[in-house]
């Protein structure tokens, strides 16, 4: 399983040759019906929760792409849709040159082997009635990779690789500590030798000293097993630590994406800036950093705001174009592969600083006026 660099790719957001695209998503949508029942359907209730609403994303071989956003931004749903735990409502998902968006059952099995998912809460993600050894060994049986002694040898080797002892093969999940359980989760994901691993908040359930251990382990395993990662997190520090590129999600859409350094040093979208401002700082100079929060609440996914979905909370709300038109992702000058979806990308720092955003009621007035036009 070697990841030979394919120099013939023509990725438009790259200036130099990049490795081949492992996963490409185009206009992926995932909508959940609000009411699934027979009677609601008969009554014509077809409201949907637009968890993911038109996302383009590419993961190249060997890289780590981060997805960040608040809870309810649709980042976990996106991860699950891309790894085909959910079926996309619309859009295309291409994995290693193969369209997988409409695959089902048997067709998906070879794909399942190559895309693995690591869950946030390892306690919930491991069957409490199976020993962790069984849980890790099961994929080997399902995919006819190994059985009997060979199977257990592989599992034991992998356990050793992530720092677990052979005696823990026969433990039940509740008998292990949180850090150990997450290591088991990593084992289960790696045992089929996948190409892409999707991490859903891999460390947020862990104590801070264990977080660092697991993040280091995740980094080391990527080098050793030649893996590509898609990492979902609300924690910008975690994403910054392990990701090559970052996509920022808000209300089911990507509002900004680019190389990690560009996002952190040159954030363009007001939402990204708000997220960065909200990171707690430990600078230790004794003065409390004045951390800015964000007013308001994430919008309803059933009935998202018009135009730019961030406009009701945006600290840089300008005029009727914000609620009136949906901004599309546009290149940020000077940064390769850096895009943001905002009508007002080219304003200077000084302009921003001088801007006083309108109040909620004023916004409402502007919105209805722009809708009338």
């Amino acid at each position: 399983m070697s990841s030979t660099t394919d120099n013939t790719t023509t990725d438009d957001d790259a200036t130099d040759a990049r490795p081949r695209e492992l996963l490409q998503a185009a206009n992926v949508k995932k909508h959940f019906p609000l009411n699934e029942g027979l009677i609601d359907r008969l009554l014509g209730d077809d409201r949907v929760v637009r968890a993911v609403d038109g996302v383009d994303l590419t993961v190249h071989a060997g890289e780590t792409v981060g997805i960040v956003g608040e809870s309810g931004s649709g980042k976990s749903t996106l991860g699950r849709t891309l790894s085909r735990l959910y079926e996309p409502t619309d859009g295309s998902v291409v994995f290693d040159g193969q369209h997988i968006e409409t695959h089902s059952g048997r067709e998906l099995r070879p794909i399942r082997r190559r895309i693995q998912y690591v869950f946030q809460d390892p306690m919930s993600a491991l069957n409490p009635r199976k020993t962790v050894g069984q849980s890790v060994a099961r994929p080997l049986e399902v995919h006819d990779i190994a059985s009997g002694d060979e199977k257990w040898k592989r599992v034991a080797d992998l356990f050793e690789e992530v720092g677990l002892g052979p005696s823990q093969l026969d433990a039940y999940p509740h008998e292990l500590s949180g850090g150990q359980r997450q290591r088991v989760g990593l084992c289960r994901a790696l045992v089929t030798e996948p190409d892409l691993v999707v991490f859903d908040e891999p460390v947020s359930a862990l104590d801070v000293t264990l977080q660092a251990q697991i993040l280091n382990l995740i980094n080391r395993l990527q080098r050793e097993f030649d893996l590509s990662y898609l990492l979902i997190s609300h924690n910008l520090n975690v994403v910054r630590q392990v990701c090559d590129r970052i996509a920022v999600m808000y209300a089911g859409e990507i509002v900004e994406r680019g190389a990690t350094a560009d996002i952190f040093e040159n954030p363009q979208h007001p939402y990204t800036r708000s997220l960065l401002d909200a990171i707690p700082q430990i600078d230790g100079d004794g003065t409390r950093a004045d951390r800015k929060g964000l007013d308001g609440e994430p919008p309803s996914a059933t009935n998202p705001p018009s135009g730019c979905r961030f406009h009701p909370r945006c600290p840089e709300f300008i005029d009727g174009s914000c609620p009136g038109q949906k901004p599309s992702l546009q290149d940020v000058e000077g940064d390769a592969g850096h895009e943001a979806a905002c009508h007002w990308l080219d304003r200077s720092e000084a302009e921003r600083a001088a801007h006083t955003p309108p109040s909620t009621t004023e916004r409402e007035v502007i919105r209805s006026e722009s809708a009338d036009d």
Partner: protein
Amino acid sequence: MSLLDVENLRVTFPVDGGPDVRAVDGVDIAVEPGEIHGLVGESGSGKSVTARSVMRLLDGAVVEADRFDYRGEDLYAKSEAEMRTIRGDDIGMVFQDSMSALNPVMTVGEQIAEVVRHHGDVDESAGLLSELRRKYVTGTSETAPSWRRAVELLETVGIADPADVATTYPHQLSGGQRQRVMIAQALGGDPSLIIADEPTTALDVTVEAGILDELRRLCDEMDVSILLITHDLGVVAETCDSVTVMYSGSVMERASTEQLFQHPAHPYTKGLLRSVPEGGATDGELTTIPGSAPEPTERPDGCPFRDRCPAAFEACADPLPEHVVDAGHATRCHLYTERDDPGEVAWDADADIDAGVTAVTDDSGEPSPTEVTDG
């Protein structure tokens, strides 16, 4: 005089057919009037047990202390009836999970008004019959003083449209709003101390900032002390005046926030500060503390941290010492009492422990590789 002054607190949970579990083993806590005191530690460090012992809410646990004074009076000498008055009236509580801590079938205004009436500042009966009438039949009248006070409190904690929000049910509010409602409820009894147990852990960072600001403002403006329990050093840095760092049932270090972040003394504190992923170069290895915290039943003698400490030496098996680093800054580490120069801890030098190895060191309770640094 400290508002809350606890010395040598020991909390033991008896276990049927097993060794007793000592969750808290000799903890000193002092909260001064008008300050936010942080109680930091990983899960299992005993920080929540310590906080609950203040409320006397530990069923089945044996609580012992050399001193357990609240406003100079021994809390554990009080009767259960007196304790009921203190809980809610004198000491308010804010929980992590606002969804389960609020009653789902009562409006939030009703829940706050109930606390206000119970506290007795308003001229309304809080007897069983009148409470039952309010809950099942009429609800609190919107002109009643207790309801007006509830709306006032909601406004105090930064809720826009407090009169409307008071008539909503908890599930209709967002996580941040519910957390504010809980703070308002804790304020309902006009307390002098609020115990906040991981109040922002379940919230998004963007919302967390607002809640922490609110706590800070209440403390500054309303003369309330807050005991803030958290695992997040970022929250401490931003909100607290002073901090107690706990590890596996013991206090490791106590300092003002400034002292702690600028001159951490205990190797554990130093390690904790270094494990926080804080940006900088990507693909760099994070410094880690090898292994994981011991189970209460498997704690080593002496310093509970010594199996994970890179600077551990023979004296660490002795009982924990107390060393005053500076005014208001104390640590419990043998490096300071046994050695003339404590030296630097290995992970501060960022070299001596191979991060690749430590990253995979067991958390199985087996002894981890430790190194002794000479002074």
